[in-house]
């Protein structure tokens, strides 16, 4: 009995101590750590871990520390739903980041919306992601915003008037990127000489490239992922096509320099983040990332890093009550007003609309950086 009493006292003391001390703010991350999208998911996890470490080292959020709960969603929609349910209902996190792919997001975000939990995509660029509802946020700049700027820049610098188009038609990402290219080309009155397609896993693109070459365009618009984009660049240069190549988000990675060694010049890409962007925040981010993980960050890591900082900025303006349902709503209400200057530059939200035109979630309102490859580096085009 005495033991019981002292145990209860001890328990009371410890819980008392915990509540008077810093509390933990649980933040869920659903990322594709295995499966085909694992390389993106790993970078995303790193970005979040780095941001959480930095925020906690700097005193946390009004004294509370951030605790990441990272779960693997394998890049599959069923897994994404399972992970979202676990994070929201079992781990009771305040906000869920992810999932990595847009398809999984279409399946999982409605769950967060229905349970009134803020959900924050850092890598979902497909249209309609934020149409789900007012608890859905993303800081990934959509290609609908990036590609027009890329085209404008190259028209201005290189006087491009007509382009040949080459795209992968069996992949969500390259297909949606192609759709956005078509729309932007039409809006800006750029003529298309011919449109050629390829499929995932193809290795020989000479037939398509020869056809494109015969139509004598001023540039080639290319919507491909890295695995096909690399060989396409190499084979285009082998065929003597030395035109500028305009790429989508899928091909925007330093890996292109290895994959298209010696043939990677004159590739134009627009992206929300660039390794060559010379702001203090970005330089610090790159240095810290390299120190912690021993590799160079990419766009996905940068966007994840910024995302947690954006949420942290919102949380600083919120008084947490400890009631998770209330706190989630409070965070949702605070998020739209956040402005933040991070690794990807100045950032704010803009409200998106659902299919019937009613206000829904929040997209990124951010200027993309257009760069062109030269001698194995990205040079920012001003």
């Amino acid at each position, binding site marked *: 009995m005495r033991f019981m009493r002292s145990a209860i006292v001890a328990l009371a003391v410890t819980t008392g101590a915990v509540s008077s001390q810093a509390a933990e703010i649980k933040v869920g991350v659903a990322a594709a750590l295995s499966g085909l999208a694992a390389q993106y998911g790993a970078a995303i996890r790193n970005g979040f871990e780095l941001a959480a470490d930095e925020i906690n080292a700097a005193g946390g959020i009004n004294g509370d520390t951030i605790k990441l709960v990272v779960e693997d969603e394998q890049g599959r929609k069923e897994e994404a739903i399972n992970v979202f*349910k*676990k994070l929201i209902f*079992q781990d009771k996190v305040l906000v869920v980041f992810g999932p990595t792919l847009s398809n999984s997001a*279409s*399946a999982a975000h*409605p769950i967060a919306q229905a349970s009134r939990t803020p959900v924050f995509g850092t890598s979902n660029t497909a249209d309609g992601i934020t149409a789900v509802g007012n608890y859905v946020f993303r800081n990934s700049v959509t290609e609908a915003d990036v590609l027009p700027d890329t085209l404008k820049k190259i028209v201005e610098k290189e006087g491009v008037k007509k382009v040949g188009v080459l795209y992968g038609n069996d992949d*969500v990402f390259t297909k949606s990127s192609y759709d956005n290219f078509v729309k932007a080309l039409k809006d800006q009155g750029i003529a298309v000489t011919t449109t050629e397609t390829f499929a995932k896993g193809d290795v020989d693109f000479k037939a398509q490239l020869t056809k494109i070459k015969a139509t004598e365009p001023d540039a080639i618009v290319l919507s491909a992922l890295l695995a096909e984009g690399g060989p396409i660049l190499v084979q285009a240069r082998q065929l003597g096509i030395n035109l500028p190549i305009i790429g989508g988000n899928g091909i925007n990675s330093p890996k292109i320099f290895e994959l298209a060694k010696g043939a990677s010049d004159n590739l134009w890409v627009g992206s929300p983040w660039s390794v060559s962007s010379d702001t203090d925040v970005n330089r610090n981010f790159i240095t810290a990332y390299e120190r912690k993980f021993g590799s160079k960050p990419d766009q996905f890591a940068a966007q994840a890093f910024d995302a947690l900082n954006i949420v942290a900025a919102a949380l600083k303006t919120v008084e947490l009550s400890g009631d998770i349902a209330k706190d989630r709503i409070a965070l949702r209400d605070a998020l739209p007003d956040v402005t933040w200057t991070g690794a990807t530059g100045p950032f704010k939200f803009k409200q998106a609309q659902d299919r019937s035109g009613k206000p829904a979630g929040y997209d990124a309102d951010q200027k993309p950086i257009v760069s062109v490859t030269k001698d194995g580096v990205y040079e920012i085009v001003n």
Partner: protein
Amino acid sequence: MDAFLLWFDEFWAVYSNLVLTLGINALLALSIWLTLACGVLALANAAFMGIGAYAGALATLNYDSPFALSIGVAMVAPSLVALAIGLPVLRLGGVYLAMATLGFGEVVRVVILNTESITGGALGLNGIPQYTQWWHVLLALVIVIFVLARLHRSKTGRAFEAIKVDETAASLMGVDLRANKLLAFVLGAAIAGLAGALNAHLTFFIGPQEYGFDRGVEILTMAILGGVTSIIGPIIGAVFLTLLPELLRGLADFRLIVNGFILVAVVLFLPNGLWDPARFRRWFGSGR
């Protein structure tokens, strides 16, 4: 009691999707078991699931059809396709049949990719209303199990069994090979289509890459791993394969490795599958 209800509410909130996926996967495993029980190794079930999922989702999205009708469409569409391709393809046997049906699966995927105005192409179909309730899945599973169990014990079931054991002998005894194989193939397609529609109306989204080679192999693995000697095997296989990755979630990065090891161990030590009545009799032999 209240404590239990509270616990159950929480459990259901987290795991409802997993439980329903269990049921849907069990339907898929049963759909391939039906053809396997007839000695036919056809790998088109993922494609039939896709046809069902798209047919059902399109009926719901474009024509606002009630859920029951969408499910009906999702079962009829793959059955008709199965009937059309079954007639020529089922003349093949063994590995050749497997290859032909795999090829058919690829054709379905490419057709879905290229009929963009209808199926959304690579972008898939988005915003499918979530109609699937727990009792839909349970009811579907109960009906399918009941029908298959009756079928298994009927004259047709005996004919399937005979064809599986020895085709030539069966045909010499007057069993119509073609009709029986076609029946198994078409029924299997209908069940796969049913599973596809239930899945599509559960997960808000479907895309063409979900019904490819990977899914086909997964369905086959569920049936084989569970054991194809009786109707219980595929269900156990589906439950096992669906639950295992979730149960191992605590292992984080090692999850898929351990998952693979367990599967290899099962195949090595239980070659007839998890559910193998003959082995149970050997182990727990009734004192003979």
